């Protein structure tokens, strides 16, 4: 049974290596992730963000603008996730009122 698990793990790695061969070369400026427009002709998100960041909000750091403004709703949810994690840790580890074991 253990041998089977090892074989599954190694074959999973081999499949991932095979898939990685089909990926574009690392750092290629013409890779789909760096293109100006997608294959369907819609404008690419990244190019839009970089072009308009300085003009829209006078903030040179593009990562900050995307994090807090363009995708601000995303960051709001993410902050809520962190808050929920804090609450959950508090609820797991709080002292029980009846003195029972946690």
């Amino acid at each position, binding site marked *: 049974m253990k041998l089977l698990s090892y074989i599954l793990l190694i074959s999973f790695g081999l499949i991932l290596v095979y898939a990685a061969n089909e990926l574009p070369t690392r*750092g290629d400026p013409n890779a789909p992730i760096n293109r100006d427009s997608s294959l369907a002709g819609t404008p690419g998100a990244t190019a839009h963000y970089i072009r308009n960041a300085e003009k829209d909000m006078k903030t040179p*750091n593009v*990562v*900050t603008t995307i994090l807090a403004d363009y995708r601000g709703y995303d960051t709001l949810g993410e902050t809520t996730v962190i808050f929920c994690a804090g609450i959950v840790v508090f609820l797991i580890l709080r002292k029980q009122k009846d003195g029972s074991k946690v």
Partner: protein
Amino acid sequence: MIWQVELIIYLLLIASAVFALRVKDLLSSIVILSVYSFGSAFLFAILGAVDVGFTEAVVGAGLTGIMFLAALYYTTRKSID
């Protein structure tokens, strides 16, 4: 983006990941995990993701290690495997 430097850091990352899982003492395992986090932060920085590298250096190498230590203080630091 000098690929030789990256190669060396990748080897360091793999070695630290393997040793973090192999060491019997959990305390040293956590310290090696911090080494792993710091190496990956360095890799992020030379790949151009300065923000991500900054965050990983603060969070991965600092706060995660402290939290693991606090948990180990109330549990055991011995491990069988």
